[in-house]
């Protein structure tokens, strides 16, 4: 299409050649119609669904024929193969689709998914493998996307352990920096030793308390150089810290769990992990109050505290921006989260304590973004049902739900030996809100939804990331550069900004470093509060290096397609296929397709809409892929769409 534009432009200089080209195109167009008319239904569908038809006049008949042959010979791997396995033992080096560059392919794929319905795709990166599945419900037109990511920590753990040993002595100061960073993220009221962290890869580093203050200040400005991100033990007395912490907790950002901090810091070595898990649980069970004592961890805390201070200012700013959320939701939620977390973690610890460090953990992220029409949005697929389906896993299910601004999101996490599942579901009645009378608010609502989605991805990405980082031995190398990117990359910032908070950039640096440090469980703690309100300074997930995960891309995808969302929703190909079709016969009265203003010729395939209006199949299909009304009478093609749609 672009080609034709340029043709036409150059045509003003060379009208003759241009005219010729237009004639050629007309010929090809005729050929196209002929070709389409001669296709069997099956072939037509095949080609359409694979976007092989192109635009009339664009390609020659021969080319079309070739495409048809190709698609017939080798059914496309992407299509209809939702069963690709999620690699259990993903290779450490990046495979096919998850290279930095390949994010685009994911995007492309997503785009086609929108058009074509159900698709599955998988990929690997490092010790992660992902599987993305999208489904379009033929009846309702709902779009459902889920992304699962499995992390195999075995490889990473071993490496990490090895590295940790090497690096720990040298890295000490830097390690502190990292830790410090961790704190700011965790301005929570909650108590320190809440959760037993089973899988932490903690390495003990030499404590260097003095540095901490300085470091923390600096960090905001500069990315911490410590790649290893090892927890440091600072030999400071716990009490002063505590005071600090208190102050901190008063800060408007009561989001994070302290527990995490303690955890990440905890002076565990890999070998110890298994054994320690249980004791820690005990701590957690003590509850918030006792937890404050943060028995094993005191020293580290100090450094983090400092950090915290600096950051908390920023977070305050944030909070101002979103005061209602932070205030209203965050506090109660946070506590809930805490307690539940404790339980969950406890359960986990008990179950897994033995398996501990060596178990093959799999983390599955299942993020679903669903579009829902307003009419249907309500009881259907209630959280309860979702929960039920998920909760078979165990009682270790944590479910968080919030509803705000017309959309609802749930976040749940469940665990069962070795498998932890995060589910973040966002239900969005995107379409036709305006019909419901919101009017002008619509676009705003839309914006915020999109942001929600982004955040959703971001959160998961964050969880994912923290996990992968902690388990990924290579993190050391990548961290500084990531930070640099975060700070310097102007592109990234805008992407992150809408998703999270205002003060992104500086926070980002800190956060990022912290991410490196934290482990899975920490990620857990982060998750639920995050979904509550995003007031606290969150890590701008999107600042990750492009290769890290598809989240950033996804976020962009949805953001960029914001405009699309504004546009009419089309029918799915299943819905289109359900419409009746016939061949134009010689006995038919002379008629014209009002889309292409061409008279029907014998043998033309026509599609008849419920309102009895007929069009060329290829004409109306294209319109219906983006619209849902008859081009002549504007009646909805799917009258019962709303009623039918049940996912």
């Amino acid at each position: 299409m672009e080609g034709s534009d340029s043709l036409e432009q150059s045509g003003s200089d060379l009208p003759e050649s241009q005219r010729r080209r237009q004639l050629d195109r007309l010929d090809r167009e005729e050929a196209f119609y002929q070709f389409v008319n001669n296709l069997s239904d099956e072939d037509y569908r095949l080609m359409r669904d694979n976007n092989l038809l192109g635009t009339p006049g664009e390609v020659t008949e021969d080319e079309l024929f070739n495409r048809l042959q190709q698609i017939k010979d080798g059914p496309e791997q992407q299509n209809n193969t939702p069963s690709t396995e999620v690699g259990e033992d993903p290779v450490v080096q990046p495979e096919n689709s998850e290279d930095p560059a390949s994010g685009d392919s994911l995007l492309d794929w997503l785009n086609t998914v929108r058009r074509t319905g159900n698709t599955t795709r998988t990929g690997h990166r490092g010790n992660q493998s992902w599987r993305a599945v999208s489904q379009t419900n033929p009846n309702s037109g709902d779009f459902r996307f889920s992304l699962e990511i499995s992390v195999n920590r075995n490889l990473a753990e071993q490496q990490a352990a090895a590295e940790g040993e090497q690096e720990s002595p040298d890295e000490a100061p830097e390690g502190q920096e990292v830790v410090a960073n961790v704190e700011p993220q965790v301005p929570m009221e909650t108590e320190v030793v809440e959760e037993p962290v089973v899988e932490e890869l903690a390495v003990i580093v030499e404590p260097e308390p003095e540095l901490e203050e300085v470091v923390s200040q600096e960090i905001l400005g500069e990315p911490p150089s410590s790649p290893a991100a090892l927890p440091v033990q600072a030999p400071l007395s716990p009490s002063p810290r505590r005071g600090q912490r208190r102050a901190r907790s008063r800060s408007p950002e009561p989001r994070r769990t302290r527990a995490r901090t303690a955890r990440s810091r905890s002076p565990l070595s890999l070998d110890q992990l298994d054994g320690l898990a249980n004791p820690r649980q005990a701590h957690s069970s003590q509850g918030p109050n006792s937890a404050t004592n943060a028995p094993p961890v005191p020293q580290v805390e100090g450094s983090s505290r400092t950090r915290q201070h600096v950051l908390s200012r920023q977070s305050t700013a944030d909070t101002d921006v979103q005061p209602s959320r932070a205030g209203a939701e965050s506090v109660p939620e946070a506590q809930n989260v805490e307690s539940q977390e404790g339980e969950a973690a406890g359960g986990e610890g008990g179950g897994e304590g033995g398996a501990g460090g060596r178990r093959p953990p799999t983390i599955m992220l299942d993020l679903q973004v669903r579009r829902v029409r307003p009419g249907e949005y309500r009881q259907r697929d209630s959280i309860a049902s979702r929960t039920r389906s998920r909760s078979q896993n165990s009682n270790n299910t944590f479910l968080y739900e919030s509803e705000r601004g017309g959309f609802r999101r749930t976040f749940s996490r469940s665990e069962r030996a070795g498998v932890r599942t995060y589910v973040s579901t966002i239900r969005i009645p995107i379409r036709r809100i305006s019909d419901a009378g919101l009017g002008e608010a619509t676009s705003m609502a839309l914006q915020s939804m999109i942001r929600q989605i982004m955040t959703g991805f971001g959160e998961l990405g964050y969880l994912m990331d923290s996990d992968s980082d902690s388990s990924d031995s290579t993190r050391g190398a990548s961290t500084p550069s990531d930070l640099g990117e975060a700070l310097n990359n102007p592109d990234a910032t805008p992407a992150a900004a809408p998703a999270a908070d205002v003060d992104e950039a500086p926070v980002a640096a800190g956060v990022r470093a912290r991410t490196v440090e934290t482990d899975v469980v920490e990620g857990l703690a982060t998750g639920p509060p995050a979904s509550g309100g995003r007031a606290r300074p969150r890590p701008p997930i999107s600042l990750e290096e492009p290769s890290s995960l598809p989240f950033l891309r996804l976020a962009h995808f949805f953001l960029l397609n914001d405009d699309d969302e504004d546009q009419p929703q089309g029918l799915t190909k299943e819905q289109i296929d359900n419409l009746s079709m016939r061949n134009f016969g010689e006995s038919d009265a002379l008629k014209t397709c009002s889309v292409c203003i061409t008279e029907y010729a014998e043998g033309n395939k026509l599609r008849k809409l419920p309102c009895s209006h007929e069009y060329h199949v290829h004409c109306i299909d294209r319109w219906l892929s983006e619209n849902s009304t008859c081009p002549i009478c504007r009646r909805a093609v799917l009258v019962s769409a709303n009623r039918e749609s049940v996912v």
Partner: protein
Amino acid sequence: MQRTSRLKRELQMLSTEPPPGITCWQTDEQVDDLRAQIVGGTGTPYEGGLFSLEIKIPERYPFEPPKMRFLTPIYHPNIDNSGRICHDALKLPPKGAWKPSLNISAVLSSIQLLMAEPNPDDPLMADISSEFKYNKQLFMEKARKWTQEHAVQRNTGVMEGNKENTPDQKSSSRKRESLTEQQEAEEPAKKTCL
């Protein structure tokens, strides 16, 4: 391109049986760039004027509506300073009412109708709109004046008038182009005309 053959047919129809008061033609052999003129309707403040429009045919036409804009300045609640038109047939559903069974001729006719009957409840120019609602007298006067200034080919000294008019129009349309660019850049943010 579907649009190529369709446009060919449409242009044929436009030249053989144009709607009353409307002409439309291709510029420079460009399929996707058309010009149209609408004669100001009798009984409207635009009477006696001849209003030029620019029509851009998008790549995905007829699945997307044609883009139309007034080149001749016109004082109208639904047409802004750069000539953009707030008209539902020029937009895709659900906001708009474009459908592929419409065509350029139909849309031009509906714009002609819009000129005769402004829609002050969906204004693009808020001040003109309120003027139209609450001080119609003034509105009529101004609209007539604009018509005289910009859209009327003077009877006396046609040549002269043309000479004067042509550069005039050119400069104004040039202004418009730059204006439009600006505004299109802002477009996503502001949605005046919903």
